[in-house]
C-alpha cells in the first residue's frame, strides 16, 4: 500500500496528464467512429458540432431545451430536461473540475498550443492582479448568455437565431469540427442581422482563442461559462482539492505553476477546500508543492495524491546531481 502511494506521489503527473488528455481527446472527438457515445450531458466543451463526437457538450442540448416555450419547459414533457441535468451533475460530481484539466478537448487544445509556444522558446504572459479581478467575471456573463438567451427565445422575446447564441460565438464550434475535416462552420451566417453579428463574433473569438492561448496559458478557460457552471456545484463533488494551511509556508511555488494564476492556492492558509472558480483542477500545484501534505487531492476524504518533499524533488530533478567538474 505504501509502495503504491509513494509511486503515485512521486509520479510525473505531466506525462500522465498528457496521455490522459490525449485519450479523452480521441474519445470525445473521434468517438463516433468507434460507436462510442457517452451521451449529451458531458460537462466540458466536447463540441456537438463535431460529427463524430463521442459524448456531447452539455450546453448544446441545454440551450435547445431552455428555448422551449415556458409552458412546455415546466411541464411533464420536459422530464428529459431534468434527466439531462441530473446526468450532467452525476458526471461532474465524480471528477469535479478535473474534467477541465484532464478531459476537455478545448482545454487540451490550449495545452497543445502552449506546448508549441514552449518549443518556440517564447515566454508566456500573465494578467496583472486588477486585470485578473475584472476579467474573471466575464465567464459569469457568458453563463448568463447560455441560460437567458434561449429562455428569451422560449418566451418569445428574442428571435430564433438567439437559440444557441453562445454556441455561435464559442470557439469550440469552429475549431473542433476541423479535427474531423469539417470546415463547414467556418462561414458567416447572413440570414439575419443578429445571426451575422453572432457568427462574426464567433470568428473573432476563435481568432482570439488561437492567439490568446498562444501567449496566455489556458486563455479561454478563464472566460468559459462551463467553468462558472462547475463552480456552482463543485462543493458537492467527490474529488476535492484540499489544503492544510498549517503545513503551508506560503512559498508561492504552487502559484508559480498555476496556469490560472490562482493566488489563493498559495496565500490562503485558512480554507481547507481550496478549489477556486477559475481552477481547472490540473493538480500542477500539488505536484509543485515542496511541503509534505500541504496540498492534496482527496476522493471521499481519502488522499489520492498528495504533495511530498520527495515527490517534489524528484519532479524538479533535485533529488540527484549531475556531477560536473569545475
Amino acid at each position: 500500500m505504501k509502495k503504491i502511494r509513494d509511486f503515485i506521489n512521486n509520479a510525473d503527473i505531466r506525462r500522465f496528464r498528457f496521455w490522459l488528455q490525449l485519450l479523452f481527446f480521441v474519445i470525445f472527438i473521434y468517438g463516433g467512429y468507434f460507436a462510442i457515445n457517452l451521451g449529451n450531458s458531458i460537462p466540458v466543451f466536447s463540441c456537438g458540432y463535431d460529427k463524430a463526437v463521442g459524448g456531447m457538450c452539455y450546453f448544446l442540448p441545454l440551450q435547445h431545451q431552455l428555448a422551449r416555450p415556458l409552458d412546455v419547459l415546466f411541464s411533464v414533457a420536459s422530464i428529459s430536461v431534468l434527466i439531462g441535468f441530473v446526468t450532467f451533475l452525476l458526471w461532474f460530481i465524480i471528477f469535479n473540475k478535473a474534467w477541465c484539466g484532464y478531459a476537455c478537448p478545448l482545454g487540451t487544445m490550449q495545452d497543445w498550443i502552449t506546448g508549441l509556444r514552449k518549443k518556440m522558446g517564447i515566454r508566456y504572459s500573465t494578467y496583472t492582479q486588477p486585470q485578473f479581478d475584472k476579467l474573471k467575471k466575464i465567464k459569469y456573463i457568458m453563463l448568463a448568455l447560455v441560460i437567458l438567451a434561449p429562455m428569451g427565445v422560449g418566451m418569445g422575446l428574442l428571435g430564433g437565431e438567439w437559440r444557441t447564441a453562445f454556441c455561435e460565438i464559442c470557439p469550440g464550434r469552429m475549431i473542433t469540427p476541423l479535427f474531423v475535416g469539417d470546415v463547414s462552420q467556418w462561414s458567416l451566417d447572413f440570414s439575419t442581422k443578429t445571426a451575422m453579428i453572432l457568427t462574426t463574433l464567433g470568428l473573432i473569438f476563435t481568432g482570439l482563442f488561437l492567439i490568446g492561448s498562444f501567449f496566455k496559458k489556458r486563455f479561454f478557460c478563464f472566460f468559459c461559462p462551463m467553468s462558472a457552471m462547475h463552480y456552482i456545484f463543485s462543493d458537492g463533488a467527490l474529488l476535492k482539492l484540499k489544503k492544510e494551511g498549517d503545513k503551508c509556508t506560503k512559498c508561492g511555488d504552487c502559484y508559480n505553476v498555476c496556469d490560472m494564476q490562482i493566488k489563493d492556492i498559495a496565500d490562503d492558509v485558512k480554507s481547507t477546500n481550496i478549489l477556486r472558480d477559475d481552477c481547472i483542477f490540473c493538480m500542477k500545484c500539488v505536484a509543485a508543492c515542496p511541503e509534505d501534505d500541504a496540498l492534496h487531492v482527496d476522493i471521499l476524504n481519502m488522499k489520492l495524491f498528495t504533495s511530498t518533499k520527495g515527490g517534489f524533488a524528484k519532479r524538479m530533478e533535485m533529488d540527484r546531481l549531475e556531477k560536473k567538474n569545475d
Partner: protein
Amino acid sequence: MTEHKIETPKERQNRHKAMEAAAVLEKIKHDFKEPPKAMEYFYDLFERVHCKHEALHGDKAKVGTMCIQVPSEIIHALDAVPLRLCNGFYTDDEIGSDLLPSKSCPLVKATVGQFASNNFSDKPDIVISPTTCDQKAKSGAIIENMGFEVYDMEFPRTKESHESREYWRRSVRKFTKDLSQNLNTKLSKKKLKDAIKKVGYAQHLYHKLNILRKNNNSPILGKDMFLVTNAFFFDKIDNWVEAVEALANECEQRVKDEISVASKRSPRIVYTGSPPIFPNLKIPLLIELSDAIIVADETCSSNRMFNDMVSVDEWFVNDMVDSIADRYLKGCTCPIFTKNEDRKRRILDLVRDYKADGVIYQAFAGCQVYEMEQKSVLEAMEKAGVPILYLETDYSPSHLGQLTTRIEAFVESLKNRKRRQ
C-alpha cells in the same frame, strides 16, 4: 635563531578570533557523546577557515550577502560564489561597538566590525545589502563609507500583498541584471537552471538529513546541525553537498541501528529566534549540555535557508528569476515583516512534526524585531499549550551562569512534564 616580530593589529585580531573559534570547536567536538563520523569534515572546515584563516575560493568572483534574502541561485549562475557575511564573532562585535549605537544588535555590530578591520580570508568583491531590518539596511551605507562596493537591494517589509510580490520580483530582476553587468558575465538559461537544481539538491539533502531528527532516537545533535548549516554560508557548494551526502547516509544508518545522541528522557526542543552563527553557538550548546536536544529550528542561519525550494513551470530565464524571487520573499518568516502569522504557524508545525516538548526563543539584545515579536509568539505557544522559554543574549562570554540556570530550570520542568504524561 628566533626573530621577534611585532604583532600587527590584524594578526592580533586573527589570533583572538582563532582562539574564540577554537574554544567553541573544542566544546563541540569533545563535550558530547559520539558525533557522526562524517562531522569531521565540518570540524575540519571550521578549523581551516576560522582558526587558520584559509581562503577557500581562490580568485573566483565573490559576492558577499548581508542577509538570507539574496538569491544564491543567481550568484551561482553568474559563476560567482555567494558568501553570507552575517557574523558571530565577539572579537568583531567589540570592534563594531565603536562604530554603531551602543544598543545595536551584536550580529550587525560584528558584521560591521569585520568590515572595519577589513579582515577576510575570502574577501567579497561586492556586498549585497537587502533592506531588511533597519540596522542591516543602514549598515550597508556605513560599510560603503569604508570603501567597499555595496549594492542595496530593495526588499519589501510586508509580504501578504500582491504589490509586494510584484515589487520584489522587479527588485530581483534588476539585481540579476546589475550583478551580471558588475561581474561582466552573461546569464544563460542553462546556467541558471543548473544553479537552481544545484541549490535545490543542497536543500533536498538538508531535508533528507533533517527529517531524521523526527525519530525518537535522534542521530544528530542540534549543535552539529548548526555547524552543517553555518558551513553553507561560505563553503564550496560541491564540497558541502558531498559532505552532507555522507552525513545523511551515516545518520540514516544510525537510525536503523537505533543509535541515539540523547537519552530517552531528554526533552526535545525547537529553537527559534536570532540566528546562532559560529562561533556564537552559546545557547544551542547550553541547551544540549543541559541534557536537552534541539530537534528542529526556525532561524535564518539554519532551517530557513533550506526551506521553500524553487519550482519552475517553464524553464525560461524570466520565469526562473520570478520563481526564485517568490521563494525568498513569500515563505520567509523573518521578523522584519509587519505581520508574522507565518512564523507562528511554522513554529507550531515544527513542534507537532518533530514531537517537541518545548520551544526556546533567543533574541539578541538590540535586535528589536525579534524582541518585539516575542510577546505574540509567547501568546501563540501558550494558547497551544507549548512551554516556551525566552532568552535575551549577546555575544559576550560573560553572563553564562545566569543563562545556564534558566535553561537548566526550563529543561528540568520539561522533564517533569514528560514524566507526568
